[in-house]
C-alpha cells in the first residue's frame, strides 16, 4: 500500500500547475492507466495473454452511454449495466477458451477474434451505435459532493480529480486483489499451471475470474474515456487500442502495481514531448518503444526496483 503514496502529490498538483495541456495529458494517463491495470490483472497476474481488453473498454463506453440514453439513468447506473454485460460476455468467452484449455498464443488469437466480432457489431449495428460515424456524448457524469450537492463534471480540473479518484480506487483494489489468496492463486497459475492444479487450485475458475475482473476494470476506463472525450467510436474496440495498453504494461513493468501507470504516463506524454513532424514523430516513438522493451525486459518499474535493490545490497 505504501507504493500508492505517489498519488498524494498528484492530488495537490492542480494547485500548482494551471496548464490545461498538462492536466489533460494526466487525465488521459489516469484513464489509460486503468485500462492497462485491467490488462495487467489477467496477463501480469494470471499469465493469460488476453486481446479482449480493448473490446471490454469499448463495450464499457457504448453500453454506459446507450443505457443512459435509453433508460434515462445516471452515468454510474449506466456503468453498472455495462459491468453486467461485460461480466456475462467475459464468462461466455472465458468459459469457451479455458474449457478448451487454450493457452498463450492460442488464447490471444481466440480472444482477438471475439474482440473483432464485438467491433464489427459496434460498426454495423447502425440503428443503435450509429456505425462508423460514432456517437457524440453530450451527457456528463455527475457526482454528489458534500456542501455543493450533485455536480456535473465538465471542466478540466473536476475531470482531473474524478479520474484520479477512480484510478486511486482501481489501484487500491488491484493491490488488495494481488495480495489476497486470489492474487496468490493467479501467480501460481502464471508460474506453473499444472503444479497449481495438483496443489488444489481450481485453475479454470481462477483464470475465468482473472479474465472477468480484468475486463470489468478495462470497461471502467472505457466509460470514463468516452465521456471525457465526448465521443464514442468503433475504433475504441480495435486491436491498436489493445496493443497500446499492452505496450504500456510492458514498458512500465509486467506484474508490478505501478508499472501500468508509469507506462501510461510515458506513452501518453511522449508524443507531446517529441516536437517533430508527424511521420518522424511516430518513427521516433516506435524506436523508443523497441529500445526500451529490448533493454528493459522488466519495464521501468522492474529496472528501478532492481537498481534500488542493488544499492541496498551494495550498502
Amino acid at each position, binding site marked *: 500500500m505504501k507504493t500508492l503514496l505517489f498519488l498524494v502529490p498528484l492530488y495537490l498538483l492542480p494547485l500548482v500547475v494551471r496548464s490545461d495541456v498538462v492536466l489533460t495529458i494526466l487525465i488521459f494517463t489516469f484513464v489509460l492507466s486503468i485500462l492497462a491495470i485491467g490488462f495487467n490483472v489477467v496477463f501480469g497476474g494470471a499469465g493469460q495473454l488476453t486481446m479482449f481488453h480493448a473490446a471490454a473498454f469499448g463495450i464499457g463506453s457504448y453500453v454506459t452511454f446507450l443505457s443512459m440514453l435509453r433508460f434515462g439513468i445516471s452515468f454510474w447506473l449506466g456503468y453498472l449495466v455495462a459491468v453486467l454485460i461485460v461480466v456475462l460476455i467475459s464468462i461466455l468467452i472465458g468459459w469457451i477458451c479455458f474449457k478448451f484449455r487454450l493457452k498463450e498464443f492460442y488464447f490471444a488469437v481466440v480472444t482477438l477474434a471475439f474482440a473483432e466480432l464485438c467491433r464489427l457489431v459496434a460498426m454495423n449495428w447502425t440503428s443503435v451505435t450509429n456505425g462508423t460515424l460514432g456517437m457524440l456524448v453530450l451527457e456528463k457524469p455527475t457526482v454528489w459532493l458534500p456542501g455543493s450537492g450533485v455536480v456535473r463534471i465538465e471542466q478540466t480540473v473536476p475531470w482531473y480529480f474524478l479520474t484520479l479518484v477512480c484510478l486511486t480506487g482501481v489501484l487500491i483494489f488491484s493491490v*488488495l*486483489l494481488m*495480495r*489476497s*489468496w*486470489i492474487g*496468490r*492463486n493467479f*501467480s*501460481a497459475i502464471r*508460474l*506453473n499451471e*499444472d*503444479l497449481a*492444479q*495438483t*496443489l*488444489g*487450485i*481450481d*485453475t479454470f475458475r481462477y483464470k475465468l475470474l482473472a479474465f472477468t475482473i480484468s475486463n470489468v476494470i478495462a470497461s471502467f476506463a472505457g466509460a470514463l474515456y468516452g465521456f471525457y472525450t465526448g465521443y464514442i467510436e468503433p475504433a475504441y474496440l480495435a486491436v491498436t487500442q489493445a496493443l497500446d495498453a499492452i505496450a504500456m504494461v510492458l514498458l512500465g513493468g509486467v506484474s508490478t502495481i505501478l508499472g501500468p501507470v508509469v507506462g501510461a504516463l510515458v506513452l501518453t506524454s511522449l508524443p507531446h514531448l517529441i516536437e517533430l513532424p508527424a511521420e518522424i514523430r511516430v518513427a521516433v516513438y516506435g524506436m523508443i518503444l523497441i529500445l526500451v522493451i529490448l533493454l528493459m525486459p522488466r519495464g521501468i518499474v522492474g529496472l528501478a526496483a532492481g537498481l534500488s535493490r542493488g544499492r541496498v545490497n551494495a550498502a
Partner: protein
Amino acid sequence: MLLKVENLTKRFGGLIAVSDVSFAINKGEIVGIFGPNGSGKTTLLSLLAGLLPPSAGRVFWKGRDIAGARPDVIAALGVIKTFQNPQLFSELSVLEHVMIASFLAFTRMKGHGRLRSFLSPGKGEAILRARAEKALTLCRLQDSSSKPAAELSYGEEKMLGVAMAMMCEPELLLLDEPASGLGNDEVHNLESVLRDLRTHGTTLCIIDHKVAFLARFADQAIALQQGCKIAEGLPHDVLADPGVVKAYLGRSHHA
C-alpha cells in the same frame, strides 16, 4: 480404509499401461509400490491424482468414487501428489513456494470468511506463514527459506515439492520416485523426513524402483510388472515372491 482401487485400467492406444489393478490403502500406512521402469507406476499414481482419466475401473476415496475427477478436486479432498521431476514456480523464494501452496489450508481455515480477509489479510497470513515454516522445518529446508528456489540442489528441490504438498495438509501423500537422483546422504535425509510425516499422521503411498529403499520402512508393498499387479503383502514377503524375483532379475531364483 482411506483409498480403495478397483480394477483400474489405463490404455494409451494399443498400450495397456495399467491393467486391472486393485488394492487398498489404510489410514496411517506407508504403502510402497515398486516395479521396474515402464511397469506403470507413474501412470498409476497419475490416475489416482486425477492427472490422467482412467480407461476403466474405479477409485474410492473414503467411499466416494473419485475416478476421473479433476486434480484440484482430488487435492481438495486430501490427496496430494508430488512429481518425479521437481515442479517449481521458478522465480519465487523457497518460503514463497510453500506460501503459494497454502490455498487449501487457507480455505479450510477461513471457509466463507475468506472475503473478510480480502480487506485485512494480516492475521490469517501470520498463521499460514507459521505453518509454511513448519512444513519447511519438517522437510529440513528451514535454513534455505529465503533463498531463491532456483539455487536449490536437485535433492532440495524434491524436498521443496514435499514441503509444498505438506502445506496442503494432505491425508494421503502420493510420492512419485522421491529417492531417484538423490545421493546417499539425501536418501537418508528423505527417509527420516518420511518417518516424520508418518508420525505427523499422513498416510503415504510411495512408488520407486529402488526396492531396498522401500522395503526399509513400507508397511505394505505392491509389485507391478507391465501394468499388472504381480504381488502384494508385507515388503519382505513380496521381495521373496518368485514372480517378483523373476521380474527384477529376469529369471527365477531356482532356475
